[in-house]
């Protein structure tokens, strides 16, 4: 299959889940396979780094013993198989393949994926993370790139066996001319837990799908994030949490800071299947529009097929509090500093939940130019 053929099969805005994110521009471009690049890659103290550059394992990094660099098997998790996964499966050559044996843990991983270098390049990664019963791991997914016009996809398949816990925090800051589609599918077994806090801070167009299936009783998920596009950027986060078993817990909290000419989209679908009794689900999305011409589309969706559940959701959208700005200014902070302080606080209430301190500090530093 050629890349143009795969692109032609991507969803159009006629598909409900894609109505705000228009990929039709991709079909008008001619992409070439990304060539090698040698960007300087960041490190985080205390984390083991695994880096992929332009769809290939970065040669400067020795593959850790747990097996990244191996091509993950295709087609294992195809329940939500669609044209994005298809494209990714056709072109991804490598990715992280992490298998943790039962009741083990490992050094936290800093998974760096860098896209760029080749103008009109395209590159793809496919990762697979499997935690056996009682295992636990922490991964910081750090998505980066340069200013080359670029098209990237990533698919991450996660399987958490009984009582396993995975934390996948994210710092996403692609280049200003990158179009990136990232798809994360997570299956959570009985009493297992998946947590993710993400800073989504850039890319010409960055679409993120987080699909989590709570498959066993007592499974838990927490998805949080801050969407902070630069002017002109388009950030889209679609979450889909499916409660398939009783006593599941899901928590979602997203915040959007949207400047002029930028767009943030959050769509949160929570499905409670028949029999998923005692489900406890909460979802909040709060948005700040920072200038005229900023746009946000925030939509919580609930589909409940069980009758003994607790599901709450709320969405707010507003502007910075003028009284608070005035109060800060009367104390000597100038307008940009007062605005930045309020915005930083708004975002920090989410980003402070990033568990590892070096990652948390990096997220805050990455956010700073957006304030």
């Amino acid at each position: 299959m050629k890349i143009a053929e795969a692109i032609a099969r991507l969803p159009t805005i006629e598909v409900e889940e894609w109505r705000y994110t228009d990929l039709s521009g991709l079909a008008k471009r001619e992409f070439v396979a990304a060539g090698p690049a040698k960007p300087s890659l960041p490190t985080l103290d205390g984390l083991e780094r695994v880096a992929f550059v332009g769809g290939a394992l970065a040669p400067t990094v020795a593959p850790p013993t747990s097996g990244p660099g191996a091509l993950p098997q295709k087609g294992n998790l195809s329940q939500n198989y669609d044209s994005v996964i298809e494209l990714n499966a056709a072109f991804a050559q490598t990715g992280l393949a992490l298998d943790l044996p039962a009741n083990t843990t490992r050094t936290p991983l800093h998974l760096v994926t860098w896209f760029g270098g080749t103008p009109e390049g395209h590159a793809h990664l496919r990762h697979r993370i499997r935690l056996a019963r009682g295992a636990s791991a922490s991964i910081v997914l750090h998505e980066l790139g340069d200013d080359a016009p670029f098209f990237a996809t990533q698919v991450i398949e996660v399987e958490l066996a009984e009582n396993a816990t995975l934390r996948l925090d994210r710092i996403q800051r692609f280049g200003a001319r990158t179009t990136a589609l990232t798809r994360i599918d997570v299956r959570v077994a009985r009493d297992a837990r998946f947590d993710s806090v993400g800073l989504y801070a850039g890319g010409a167009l960055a679409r993120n799908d987080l699909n989590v299936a709570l498959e066993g009783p007592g499974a838990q998920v927490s998805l949080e994030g801050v969407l902070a596009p630069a002017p002109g950027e388009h950030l889209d986060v679609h979450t889909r949490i499916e409660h398939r078993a009783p006593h599941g817990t899901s928590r979602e909290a997203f915040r959007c800071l949207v400047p002029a000419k930028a767009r943030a989209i959050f769509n949160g679908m929570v499905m409670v299947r028949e029999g998923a009794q005692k489900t406890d689900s909460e979802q909040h999305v709060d948005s700040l529009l920072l200038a005229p011409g900023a746009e946000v589309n925030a939509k919580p969706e609930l589909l409940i097929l069980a009758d003994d559940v607790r599901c709450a959701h709320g969405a707010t959208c507003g502007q910075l509090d003028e009284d608070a700005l005035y109060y800060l200014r009367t104390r000597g902070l100038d307008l940009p500093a007062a605005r930045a302080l309020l915005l930083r606080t708004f975002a920090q209430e989410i980003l402070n939940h990033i568990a590892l301190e070096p990652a948390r500090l990096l997220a805050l530093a990455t956010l700073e130019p957006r304030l």
Partner: protein
Amino acid sequence: MLEITNLHAKVDGKEILKGVTLTVKPGEVHAVMGPNGSGKSTLAHLLAGRAGYEVTKGSVTYRGQDLLALAPEARATVGMFLGFQYPVEIPGVSSMYFLKAAMNAQRKQRGEPEIDAMDFLAWVRDRLAKVKMDIAMLHRGVNEGFSGGEKKRNEILQMLVLQPSLMVLDETDSGLDIDALKIVSEGINAMRDPGRSILLVTHYQRLLDYVKPDQVHVLARGRIVKSGGPELARELEEKGYGWLEAAA
């Protein structure tokens, strides 16, 4: 010296101040009293630089500078401080961080270096004791969940920390019990010195038992209708504002 000369101002097209003239010299404490709706709070916010007021005539200068031409933060830098009647809650921004950011912003504007963290902590601790506040309160969000009295004491704390030279205190005494009023008054009295000017905007005479003003002005229907010594405040307490409003 603060000089307000023939100040006229509109809010939403309605004239609220209709020619206020007032001079507060260094070292002086003046009280502006008046009934509700007389324009007291408008005057206070106009001095601090709140948006939404239209000055149609007159001027305000402080130490010879045109105060009305300055942004709120620039007024703070030249020494202005407004104690809010209704202090704003800013959830999530710790008071300690806020105080330090404010202090360093003002120092930066004046070309001074940032304050050393330990010096700052000692400076704040000393002033916390003066307003009988616990340091734990400063680890909470600015005014977040504070009672009315706690918010007013927090205003006084900010004033003591920032050391302004021109203070406009807008009904800082309203809603306080006697103990809290004493604490607030002691804070204000601690700031009295020959280089500083204080304008107390108040509805009640009670504050003036604890902070002795040099002059008392009565603001009614947008004008100062009477000025006098501290005895004027007592007279108002006995007679109310009706006799002066009728005269205005």
